[in-house]
């Protein structure tokens, strides 16, 4: 696969404030990278540096193989939906896209064809001739995504694209995000503070906290690295509960097993490292129960979600 974003040691300082510090990341074509972080983590600043709106105070990067010293060329190869982007209410969706397509050098006729095609792609063709002032927030975000695609970019940056949208609007926008990577082969950098968006849509994740990247990799890598499962809640038949406790107590990785108070058949298990191993895999515990002929009615891990990894990483630094 081709690397389309390479950033090494990027820093951005505003006076005394260090907004981004030592950001290093690589993204391949077709990847969807979720940039996660709490408010003020530096996500928007990082996106603005990579999209050439802000100059880095330190570090180097390239986008689509073009070094950051040639920002005009980079802008020709990227599409961006900025955070809280505004829209000219008097223009129609079609006029808006045509205008931007023409700014990228398309002829009038091709700009029109491109605008209608993109509106169709994001499900706005039936509102193409309505003024943007009449669009809902979700429609505006989808229009913004369409605008980010007018130049057939190699990399698409979306900064909080689902901010303020209802669940249906979020679903539509995330569907568009996945389609960009899958059908166009473009890399997508999706900045968000919503963890489920990253779990649903991203192949890779970068977690930022106070301007520093605290984790980067595939979603599953980051989860397993940061927050391996430590506790589980499981349900067996009440008649099997005591037998399940004794079975689990004999499993190497299980540190503690106890009945959940007032809930017959419900058990809480704590996994721990033994003999210096990263012994937190629940597989042996589940296998032991099955081997003992105990019917497992439910099994739920705590600490196996991106949210747990995120909290651990952002609270620890």
């Amino acid at each position, binding site marked *: 696969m081709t690397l389309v974003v390479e950033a090494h040691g990027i820093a951005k300082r505003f006076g005394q404030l260090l907004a981004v510090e030592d950001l290093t990341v690589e993204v391949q074509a077709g990847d969807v990278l979720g940039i996660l972080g709490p408010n003020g983590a530096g996500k928007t600043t990082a996106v603005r540096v990579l999209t050439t709106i*802000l100059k880095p105070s330190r570090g180097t990067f390239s986008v689509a193989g073009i070094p950051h010293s040639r920002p005009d060329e980079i802008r020709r190869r*990227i599409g*961006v939906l900025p955070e809280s982007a505004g829209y000219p209410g008097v223009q129609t969706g079609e006029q808006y896209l045509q205008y931007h397509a023409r*700014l990228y*050098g398309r002829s009038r*006729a091709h700009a029109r064809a491109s605008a209608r095609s993109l509106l169709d792609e994001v499900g706005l063709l039936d509102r193409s001739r309505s003024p943007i002032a009449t669009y809902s927030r979700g429609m505006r975000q989808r229009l913004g995504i369409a*605008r980010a695609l007018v130049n057939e970019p190699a990399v698409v940056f979306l900064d909080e694209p689902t901010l303020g949208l209802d669940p249906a609007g979020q679903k539509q926008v995330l569907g568009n995000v996945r389609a960009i990577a899958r059908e166009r082969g473009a890399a997508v950098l999706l900045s968000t503070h919503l963890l489920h968006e990253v779990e649903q849509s991203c192949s890779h994740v970068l977690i930022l906290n106070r301007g520093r990247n605290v984790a980067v990799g595939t979603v599953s890598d980051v989860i397993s690295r940061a927050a391996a499962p430590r506790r589980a809640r499981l349900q067996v038949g009440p008649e099997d509960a005591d037998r399940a406790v004794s079975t689990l107590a004999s499993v190497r990785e299980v540190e503690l097993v106890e009945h959940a108070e007032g809930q017959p058949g419900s058990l809480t298990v704590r996994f721990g490292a033994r003999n210096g191993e990263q012994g937190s895999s629940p597989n042996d515990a589940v296998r032991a129960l099955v081997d003992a002929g105990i019917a497992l009615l439910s099994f739920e891990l705590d600490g196996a979600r991106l949210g747990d990894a995120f909290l651990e990483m952002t609270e620890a630094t």
Partner: protein
Amino acid sequence: MSAAQADGKPRRAPSWPIVLERELRDLWTGGRALVLCLAFSLLLSAIAYLVATNTDLNFLEQRESVGLTLQVSVAVGSLLALLVAGDAISGERERGTLETLLLTPLSRRQLVVGKLLAALSLWLAAFAVTAPYVWKLGRGVGIVVDALAVGFVVGTLLAVFLASLGMLISLFSGSNRFTLSLSLFVLLALFAPSQLPSSAEKGWAGELLVRINPVTAGEHFIGRIVVNGHSWSEDISWLVAPVVAAVLFAVLAPLVAGRFLQLRGGVEG
């Protein structure tokens, strides 16, 4: 879709005509320019009515009534260009639309040139509104053509100067309110010398003050040609300040934009 886009090979032609076309459409079909022109027409109607009645009552010479109307038209028409140019960048900042423009390959200079030319359309419209009033007030004394010509030249120079000034303020301003406040303050300061008693303009210092100020020099030139009946060549020196100011600021605005136009107002720290 890809097929449609693949055919349209990007070209590197100047982008300012695209910006100009879009800005003109937004200004005129969006209604903002029409409202400003309507307000201008009402003001000019009131002024024309007052000078016409004063002329009928022999309080004003016919030439004076044309000169006064023209001076008001030039002042207010160039003010309209200033207002629209002032909104050009800080307004985009406030509406959150500047970032998407800065993210396109459009150069910042071309963005400013397109917007500046669109702002000047307000002055051209104001002049078109003024022409019938000048014709009505000036017919019979043979000054209509000269009055329209001098009004167009001076008004265009002042509109270019003031619109570029508004654009420069807008480039560094974080809010439209600040842009408009500062622009109006500068405009009033430029017009202030025209309120001095005529005796104050007679000394060398007074004349210098009027001559180096493009606004007062331009208005003075209109008075000399229309009211006093001088020839253009006789008083051409009064056009030096408006010409210098128009050229200087029209060149400065795109140059400064190329260097300093950024997402937030002010200067990057």
